[in-house]
């Protein structure tokens, strides 16, 4: 079966492609939007979590008696208060440690008290006897055979001999014969790269309000990217039936992948069950950094062969990603992305998933791909410099196109990489002059995008308006996009649709808002639910007119007779059909439930100018342009916003952001002071070019846009800085001390 959903070839859109004010806008500019920490309940307690100060230790004992003796303390929980038989053992263990703590910040006890300050003070009265064990936080060190072992069970059947038990799995992708390809090259270049762990850095700390009775029935208000999914996780970890827990997704203050799992939610539920009162937990910023998932830190080797004319003859990438104390780093996806932008005859990409004493990694925007692209695009840029070739032309020459067999297996359908490269080449930025100490970098990036389980319900009201119920939390303006698509399909004004992210009791299952899937999958489901409603509306018109249902069509927001044979009838507008629906057959809702599998892959090309101060190693990004394929931009302002936001996060990751661990295995920069995300004065305006090559898997051609935008920046900035500084930078972040040292080493 082909990608056969696209049906908008010559369609003229009236709503889609416009830029209306988002439905949650006024709430968000007046302060009344309710985020995770903004909800309270009568009789509410505050929870706080005790966290390990050690990177690796066996817990000999936990004495909570002094904390329990405080009158303000109403409940204390440890591992014994959770479902030991949980099917998601790693999730349970990460929420509440069992026999061992595995990283600085690992939770091992929690209290609920009458105020937040009382709860925090009570934590200091809990006495823990630790048997401190050797630790390892660096990916290369963790792979060595003599490294401290974090999980005795070791890796799976895919791991070759000779590695430590910390290597959990190995994967390989590719085709052809890379050695043959290297032999055909005029120049073969091999380099090694490292990237530091970067945190998603959402401004809203994790927060929730839980209420659970000992009958296993409960409510949870929480900021999350996926309330259905975490409902299931919470139910598993605290040992209740999933549908007995009703989860309401609050407004969410940023996630970027980091709010796709649970940390404090099962803890708040367990505390609530024990105290028989509602419990609110809000992480401190330090807890967010120490205990929630950053992305992997990595070590990579890339070898590429090129002919003098720019043809890439072979590519080899070895990716080593640590994913914290549990298996599951995104190295498989990184390895698949390494060479996805290029049509190569000979390609091999290998990945090792490694554990070490760090917090469990969580998804971060195109997990794995930015690092892989950094390594590959840096080597391509070096080859362009050595062979004196234009970086756009070389990429155009080798670019993946429709019909290309991807390095990880599938053959591409219609894709837009070439179009983004042409957009970059034609942008005035590409030919603008550079100043002293400035360099221009270019890089491409790829992300799969995702479909996922999706349910949407669209209910009509008697006044001719629409209540659209979706189950994917709105992480970037998606309610506006859903309203636009529903309005487009029904032929009614945008303002007549109200989109709500409803709770888990009000709709069928929905996968998490991740994988850039919301505008694609919930959008597709919204369109199909609207079409379902339209069919029902046509049925009502048919009844009213006394003609067969097939003789009615929906056009311009009205039911009309399909042709002269259907008879002469005045069109019935949407509002009129809504008004009479009680009498014509009852309430009308449209539905759609499916797992859409046509998510279109997305490519981007980024252009960046950077200026390096040769005396201090300081870098300033002076100009930035994003060219990305959106398939079809539903709300272009929020598409631009995704492009700009991804670029800005990439700039932070490339230049300053990093998890810094001390010799003692403790995180040294667990705050926004020293985990340095870009501030307003660090950045230029970020130009955007929306390329639209329709995704054949969506009725309007939508491709997800949220993730691809963070893939090229690491490489594009590294290429710009390397050209500006005159020395190739192979380790992120390219902090000033690192750049100054590279300059001094170059000059001997």
């Amino acid at each position, binding site marked *: 079966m082909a990608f056969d959903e696209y049906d908008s070839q010559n369609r003229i859109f009236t709503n889609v492609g416009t830029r209306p004010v988002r439905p949650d806008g006024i709430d968000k500019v007046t302060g009344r939007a309710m985020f995770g920490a903004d909800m309270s309940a009568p009789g509410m307690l505050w929870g706080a979590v005790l966290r390990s100060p050690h990177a690796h230790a066996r817990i000999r004992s936990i004495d909570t008696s002094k904390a329990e003796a405080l009158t303000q303390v109403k409940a204390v929980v440890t591992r014994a208060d959770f479902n030991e038989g949980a099917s998601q053992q790693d999730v349970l263990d990460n929420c509440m440690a069992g026999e061992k703590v595995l990283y600085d910040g690992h939770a091992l006890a929690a209290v609920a008290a009458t105020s937040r300050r009382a709860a*925090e003070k009570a934590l*200091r009265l809990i006495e823990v006897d630790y048997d401190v064990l050797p630790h390892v936080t660096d990916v290369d060190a963790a792979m060595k055979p003599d490294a401290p072992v974090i999980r005795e069970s070791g890796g799976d059947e895919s791991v070759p001999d000779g590695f430590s038990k910390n290597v959990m799995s190995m994967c390989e992708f590719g085709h052809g014969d890379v050695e043959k390809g290297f032999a055909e090259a005029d120049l073969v270049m091999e380099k090694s790269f490292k990237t530091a762990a970067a945190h998603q850095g959402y401004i809203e700390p994790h927060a929730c309000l839980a209420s659970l009775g000992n009958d296993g029935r409960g409510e949870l208000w929480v900021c999350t990217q996926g309330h259905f999914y975490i409902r299931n996780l919470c139910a598993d970890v605290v040992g209740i039936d999933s549908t007995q827990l009703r989860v309401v997704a609050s407004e969410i203050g940023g996630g970027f992948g980091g709010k796709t799992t649970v940390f404090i939610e099962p803890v708040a539920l367990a505390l609530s069950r024990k105290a028989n009162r509602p419990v609110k937990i809000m992480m401190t910023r*330090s807890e967010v950094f120490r205990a929630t998932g950053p992305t992997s830190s990595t070590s990579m080797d890339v070898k590429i062969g090129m002919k003098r004319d720019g043809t890439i003859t072979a590519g080899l990438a070895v990716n080593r990603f640590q994913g914290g104390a549990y298996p599951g780093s995104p190295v498989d996806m990184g390895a698949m992305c390494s060479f996805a932008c290029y049509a190569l005859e000979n390609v091999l990409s290998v990945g090792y998933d490694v554990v070490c004493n760090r917090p469990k990694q969580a998804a971060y925007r195109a997990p794995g791909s930015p690092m892989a692209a950094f390594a590959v695009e840096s080597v391509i840029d070096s080859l362009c410099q050595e062979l004196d070739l234009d970086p756009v032309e070389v990429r155009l020459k080798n670019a993946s196109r429709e019909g290309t067999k991807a390095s990880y297996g599938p053959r591409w359908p219609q894709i837009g990489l070439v179009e983004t490269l042409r957009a970059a080449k034609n942008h005035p930025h590409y030919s603008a002059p550079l100043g002293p100490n400035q360099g221009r970098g270019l890089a491409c990036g790829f992300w799969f995008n995702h479909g996922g389980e999706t349910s949407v319900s669209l209910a009509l009201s008697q006044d001719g308006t629409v209540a659209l119920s979706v189950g994917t939390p709105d992480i970037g303006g998606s309610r506006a996009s859903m309203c636009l698509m529903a309005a487009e399909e029904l032929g009614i004004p945008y303002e007549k649709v109200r989109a709500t992210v409803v709770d888990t009791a009000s709709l069928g299952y929905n996968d998490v808002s991740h994988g850039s899937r919301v505008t694609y999958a919930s959008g597709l489901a919204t369109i199909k639910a609207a079409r379902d409603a339209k069919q029902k509306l046509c049925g009502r018109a048919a009844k009213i007119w006394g003609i067969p249902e097939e003789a009615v069509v929906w056009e311009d927001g009205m039911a009309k007779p399909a042709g002269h044979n259907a008879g002469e009838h005045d069109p019935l507008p949407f509002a009129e059909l809504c008004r009479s629906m009680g009498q014509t057959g009852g309430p009308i809702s449209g539905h759609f439930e499916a797992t859409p599998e046509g998510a279109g892959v997305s490519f981007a090309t980024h252009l960046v100018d950077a200026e390096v101060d040769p*005396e*201090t*190693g*300081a870098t*300033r990004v002076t100009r930035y342009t994003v060219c990305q394929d959106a398939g079809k931009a539903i709300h272009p302002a929020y598409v631009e916003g995704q492009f700009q936001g991804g670029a800005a996060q990439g700039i932070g990751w490339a*230049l*300053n952001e990093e998890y*810094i661990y001390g010799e003692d295995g403790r995180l*040294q*920069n667990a705050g*926004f*002071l*020293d985990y*340095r995300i*870009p*501030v307003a*004065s*660090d950045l230029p305006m970020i130009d955007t070019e929306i390329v639209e090559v329709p995704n054949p898997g969506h009725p309007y051609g939508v491709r997800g846009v949220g993730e691809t935008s963070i893939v090229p920046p690491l490489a594009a900035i590294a290429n710009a800085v390397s050209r500006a500084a005159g020395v190739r930078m192979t380790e992120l972040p390219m*902090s*000033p*001390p690192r750049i*100054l*040292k590279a300059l001094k080493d170059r000059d001997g």
Partner: protein
Amino acid sequence: MRYESPSTLHDAVALLHAEPGLTRVLAGGTDVLVQLRSGMVEPDLVVDIKRIDGIYDIAEEEGGFRVGAAVSGAMLDEHAGVKTAWPGVVEAACLVGSTQVHARATLAGNLCNASPAADTVPPMIAAAATARIHGPDGVRDLPVEQVGIGPGKTALEKGEMIGSIFLPARPAHSADAYLRFIPRTEMDIAVVGAAVSLALEDGVISEARVALGAVAPTAVLVEDGAAALIGTTADEQALETLAAAASASCNPINDKRGTVEFRTDVAGVLAKRATLIALSRARGEA
């Protein structure tokens, strides 16, 4: 924890002196509240000095300025007199944290927090500023460079607090400047800070003081650096000598913010650049 907000310096000192436990003086609060929140310190008494009469005053005194202990960076920035005489001190005060922090953070607080990386301390040292310390035994003045004695440690005795900072009078054709290195453009703690104050006579540097921050356990006065400038027009050779002296005076650490090598190198670079800014200001060019 007790909270008191006395209305006189005398009462503030009496409260601090009488409390047997841990005390904290609350001025701008931008360090004290962070310490409270993290549980780093659990004081028994916090004395909020912002209700003290005159504590927000900037008074002219002997041609200089006496700056009350609660005067924030934003207030200094709005004071034309101080800004003209001591632009380097003011620019340092407006580099500490964000706009929101400038609205609260004070010179005295920055000094008492005794961070080696405090932005306003090097320019105050370069300015030969003094701190007026009020205590149970009366009042004493101490040069700013003698207040901080180590990371988080000051020369203040039990019951003592800073009531004001004095910035002395300036001769004609004089100016100061402060530069710091941070990885971002704002919001970071200085990796290196360099302050230069100088005066010109007939276009030649007649007086100079150079101070560095974040390169040693306390801010350092670089006397060799000043000597390299005095009697010159800050020509290339003088600047190189200054840079070498600045680098030589560094005794930094490797930490999450920078390496020994980086701090040592950049100290020299910033000392040169700050000198050129101060020079151009003293000449009336900027």
